[in-house]
């Protein structure tokens, strides 16, 4: 079977929208509902966050959603079940699971990779998994289970390291837009644009999506000028927090972002 992520990038190389949200937020069963609505609204990739008690790379919005999800009783085990349910409900877009290493480690990394793939996930992002550990212990496991693996790069990542990350990546690279934790911002500074230009000019093997600070059509289309598309997280979580009508709000959110 072909992987839905590689499939997507082989047919589309501009304007890809990946939407991140935290599993089990705002309610335990929101994970499935939101996935369905995102799929119907035209999001290209769904990225589901595994909540963790100590999300050091996240700003206040995602921290808060992690806390609420954990208070709701969210767990890795439940997430696997929810992914199955999402696929059962006929959601066709690629699904990526993203989370800090510790909850995955306690579940068992090997078991997690297998179960996630079997449930219908297409890729994983484990931002605190070291490159050497992936390369030496898990790369072949990911490959055997037909799962993509995405690493992050940031504006301070050296070119040499970007190339190494590129060589270990399958699917796409996650280019963090600024030296910052996650959080919604309205515009990009000049040096961010220069960084996107640099990446764009590097002729990487893999496409990249830009994430962190994407919140509106302006930042989304700006990011898309230099990349295959962008990832929205905090802005979407903020929407979920305040929404009284998810169906309409998610549809409008995706529409407005894509412009």
């Amino acid at each position: 079977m072909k992987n839905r992520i590689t499939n997507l990038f082989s047919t589309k190389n501009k304007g890809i929208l990946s939407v991140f949200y935290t599993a089990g937020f705002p309610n335990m069963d929101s994970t499935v509902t939101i996935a369905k609505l995102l799929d119907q609204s035209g999001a290209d990739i769904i990225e589901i966050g595994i909540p963790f008690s100590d999300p050091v790379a996240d700003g206040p919005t995602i921290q808060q959603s992690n806390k609420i999800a954990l208070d709701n009783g969210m767990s890795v085990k439940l997430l696997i079940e929810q992914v199955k349910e999402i696929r059962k409900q006929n959601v066709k877009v690629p699904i990526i699971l993203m989370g800090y290493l510790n909850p995955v480690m306690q579940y068992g990394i090997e078991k997690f990779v297998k179960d996630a793939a079997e449930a219908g996930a297409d890729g994983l992002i484990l931002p605190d998994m070291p490159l050497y550990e992936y390369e030496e212990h898990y790369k072949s496991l990911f490959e055997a289970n037909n799962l993509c693996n995405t690493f992050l790069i940031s504006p301070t990542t050296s070119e040499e390291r970007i190339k190494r990350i590129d060589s270990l990546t399958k699917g796409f690279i996650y280019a963090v837009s600024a030296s910052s934790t996650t959080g919604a911002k309205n515009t990009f500074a000049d040096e961010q644009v220069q960084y996107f230009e640099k990446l764009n000019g590097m002729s990487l093997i893999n496409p990249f999506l830009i994430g962190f600070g994407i919140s509106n059509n302006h930042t989304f289309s700006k990011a898309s000028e230099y990349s295959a598309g962008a990832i929205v997280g905090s802005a979407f979580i903020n929407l979920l927090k305040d929404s009284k009508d998810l169906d309409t709000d998610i549809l409008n959110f995706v529409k407005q972002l894509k412009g």
Partner: protein
Amino acid sequence: MNYKVNDRGYYGNFGGAYIPEMLYPNVEELRNNYLKIISEEGFKKEFYDLLKNYVGRPSPLYFAGRLSQKHSTKIYLKREDLCHTGSHKINNTIGQILVAKRLGKQKIIAETGAGQHGVATATVCALIGMECTVYMGKVDMERQKPNVERMRILGAKVVPALSGNMTLKDATNEAMRHWINNPTDTHYIIGSVVGPHPYPDMVARFQSVISEEIKKQLEEQEGNPYPDYVFACVGGGSNAAGAFFNFLDDEHVNLVAVEAAGKGINSGESAATTALGKPGVLHGSKTLLIQTEDGQVIEPYSISAGLDYPGIGPIHSHLFEVGRAKFVSATDDEAMDAGIGLSKLEGIIPAVESAHAIAALDQFQFDKDDIVVVNLSGRGDKDLETYIRWGKY
């Protein structure tokens, strides 16, 4: 058996650098430079000069006669409580600020629990003239008011950590977030042998002056540099790492690490990591960690704010796993009794953290000729309110 860090940053199965990419360049810069920097003659001269003339080292190795009598053996106290600012924490902050200076950093951040590391960091920032921001859990700021004001008097900005349970673990999270957001001009002075490689090794090396001195002092006072036992309390484990460091390869020296059992190991309110923890990843290293089955970190508890951390440094997870150090624990009650006991026997009011190490002596039967060294990591001034609330003196 090798007890030192390997070139990939591991102690056996523990350690490494499990960090998001945004922290990688900072940590890598440190990793590439720390050994070079700390082995330079100029660095060593400046470091030892400050330890001597500013910190007041060597700290005495005091033969505690009345305490020895009580335990029918020979007990020495390594008097880290007499260091400037009141604990061993300053050995590390002096070292790290000199490293930061050589890396061209202009700003310093730190996390603190009890406030001892925060004060030690604020102190060296004043000394060198660097801007200092200390993250401290809001709950700890309320528990440790005098240390908050000490930091402010020294010119540091104290920022309350408002996430999670608002204690040490959350202050560490906030400091890491700050570092992610300020990657080029800022150095993060971590306060214990925790965090991503090379922190555990770097901090252990700076604290190793403790055991370096113990050896010399025992040689002078006993004609033999090797004690039979070394006791130290373990929060993150920096004073213990320093007290053990130069004895690690001398297997005949018994190393005893004392964790905080809080209200009892199985009470649900404890910080005894080796008894309750499983291997996990927090704050950049793989180590034993108190956590739920689902990998969520559990907030620990101890009467001493300096010991309530949910993990221990990877070096200690390794020493525990291979059995090189014996890990025991002392409850709140045992530690407070021991602290008051030491005050009355020796005229030394210990930090509540250090009182845990004293309390553990009761769990051992020593020979009368044994030489027992207890690392007295800090003084009790900061804990006066805790002693007063405890009351039984």
